[in-house]
């Protein structure tokens, strides 16, 4: 078991190193090297950057400095604004994105799993068709359409919630729903398929032959096995949502990571993009690692390898 954990940890660290190196190389390969171009950088930022990234030093050394900074939790500074560091953006944006993302994931996972189970149990009856309808709708309609529709009806027309902004619980409802809806659709569909797959297994027949009720079969023998694929996808899903959603945050003007990143792209704030990507990668890989551990706890078979 310890061996498994160590192995997964090593893989995670290796993956992270490759991604961080890749972002460094990508940024260095921007045509016309903005870092070397005097006109693109304000002088006071220039000094800041040189101190931070060692821009006057050879490439290898810059790489070592960059990695060393990351190792100390320093994601760098803005290329466009002085006195703005990636860390400060993360500090303000990440809690917001995290709160929004986690509530969306909560909606998505809980409703998705429940809907999936219901659909599978009531296969071929109306709850099943309803869930299929919702999941096809959720997969087919882009998030910005949902977000805009929610905003138009629930905020602008019905005035139940604020149109945009952040800070109160009410402002959180619509973005979380807009973000969660797609997840509900995706998870429900997946859970349904997985449930049906498990229900056709031989051990379900064994359980039935023991005299268990349908409910006991579902709760004791089906859900735990059927939820495996959900566990697998939920890690990257939670990770990618909690680091911020580009679209929903922009529509509802939520001051999260996604909004800052889109702004950074529009501003061509290269170091900001690089720093945020690095942060993103770290969170993602951390989550993947956690998922591996959770998976091991849920599925006893994994321990064998």
């Amino acid at each position, binding site marked *: 078991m310890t061996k498994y954990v160590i192995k997964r940890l090593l893989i995670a660290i290796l993956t992270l190193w490759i991604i961080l190196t890749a972002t460094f190389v990508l940024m260095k390969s921007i045509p016309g090297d903005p870092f070397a171009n005097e006109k693109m950088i304000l002088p006071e930022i220039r000094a800041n950057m040189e101190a931070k990234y060692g821009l006057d030093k050879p490439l290898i050394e810059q790489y070592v400095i960059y990695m060393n900074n990351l190792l100390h939790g320093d994601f760098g500074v803005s290329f466009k604004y002085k006195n703005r560091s990636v860390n400060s953006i993360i500090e303000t944006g990440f809690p917001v994105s995290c709160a929004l993302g986690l509530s969306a994931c909560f909606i998505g996972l809980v409703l998705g799993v429940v809907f999936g189970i219901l659909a599978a149990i009531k296969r071929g009856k109306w709850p099943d068709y309803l869930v299929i309808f919702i999941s096809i709708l959720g997969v087919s309609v882009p998030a910005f359409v949902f977000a805009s529709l929610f905003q138009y009806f629930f905020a602008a027309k019905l005035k139940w919630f604020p149109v945009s902004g952040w800070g109160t619980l009410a402002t959180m409802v619509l973005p979380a729903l807009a973000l969660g809806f797609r997840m509900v659709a995706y998870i429900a569909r997946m859970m349904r398929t997985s449930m049906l797959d498990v229900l056709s297994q031989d051990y379900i027949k064994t359980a039935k*032959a*023991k005299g268990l009720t349908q409910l006991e079969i579902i709760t004791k023998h089906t859900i735990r096995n059927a939820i495996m694929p959900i566990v697998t996808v939920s890690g990257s899903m939670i990770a990618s949502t909690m680091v911020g959603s580009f679209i929903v945050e922009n529509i509802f003007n939520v001051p999260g990571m996604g909004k800052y990143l889109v702004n950074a792209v529009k501003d061509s704030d290269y170091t900001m993009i690089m720093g945020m990507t690095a942060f993103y990668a770290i969170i993602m890989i951390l989550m993947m690692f956690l998922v591996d551990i959770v998976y091991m706890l849920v599925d*006893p*078979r994994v321990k064998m390898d």
Partner: protein
Amino acid sequence: MSENKDRKPLLKIEDLHVSFMTYAGRVQAVRGVSLSMEKGEILAVVGESGCGKSVTAQTILQLNPSPPSVIEGGKIELEGRDLIKCSESEMRKVRGREISMIFQDPMTSLNPTARVGNQIMEGILKHQKVSRKQAYDRAVEMLRLVGLSNPEQRMRQYPHEFSGGMRQRAMIAMALVCDPKILIADEPTTALDVTIQSQIVDLMLELREKLKTGILIITHDMGVVADIADRVAVMYAGMIVESGDVQEIFYHPKHPYTWGLLDSIPKPGTGRTDRLVPIDGTPPDLIYPPKGCPFAARCDYCMKICHERMPEITDAAGGHQVRCWLQHEYAPKVENRYTTGEGGEDHAAGSHRA
């Protein structure tokens, strides 16, 4: 038969009809099967794949998913009580407590994410008013009984930590834990290695002696039948074509299909060198079953009548029942090693281990 008219057999299936409503049409998987079984008896239902033997077995416990399966008629009486008329909740009390079942593939028949011990205890806790401790002790006892060493340790393990034979033993322990009257074993040895097969057969024989459980074994393996069964029913295309005591079936088989089955199995230790004879052709499509005898098209002794009319079940000597026109007085006499009484011994002698 006449001496004890009120005595009900342990299990009696009468004229059972089961169909599957599929995309291609109505598949008449079981077409009028009648079987009966006494307490502590081992009855083998034998036939090739797709003949309806598993469907029959699963229908007893109503385990076939419905839809697509439909029980279209007949009775399944457990000590006189018709199970087909039972409600789902009454059936649940039968399953695992009065009739248990084990399946072909022990690799997939156990829940991979639950401890073996819990899976065994589940049945006891469901059917008997006992504490967890008592259930635990009972489960350990059962594991010991089916021949697993270190039962306490086995209880904590997961199915993937067991070998195939051990899993089938665990399955048997799980099935017998509530001391059912009948164990239905659906191809219990098919997925196992040959050496493990004979261990499982021996285990079932041993448990029958100890627990007096009736066993309905479904198999396509005549060798297993010879080893284990008291009585045999040969099934073909959804019907019982011949049934009788194991000795009768092996020494005096009457149905050409049974002859074919016996010809197509190896005869170890007899020194005979004849080649195995396969039965030509395939069973009929049960969406469009023939109106006559279903075996007619593959039968070496086929007559005109066989294509026209379904033969009735007739009693032959020795409590033996056959569904074949050859039993009719008009039918020409067939001469082969089975009718002259010299076939069969070698199978029974060859595969019966002392």
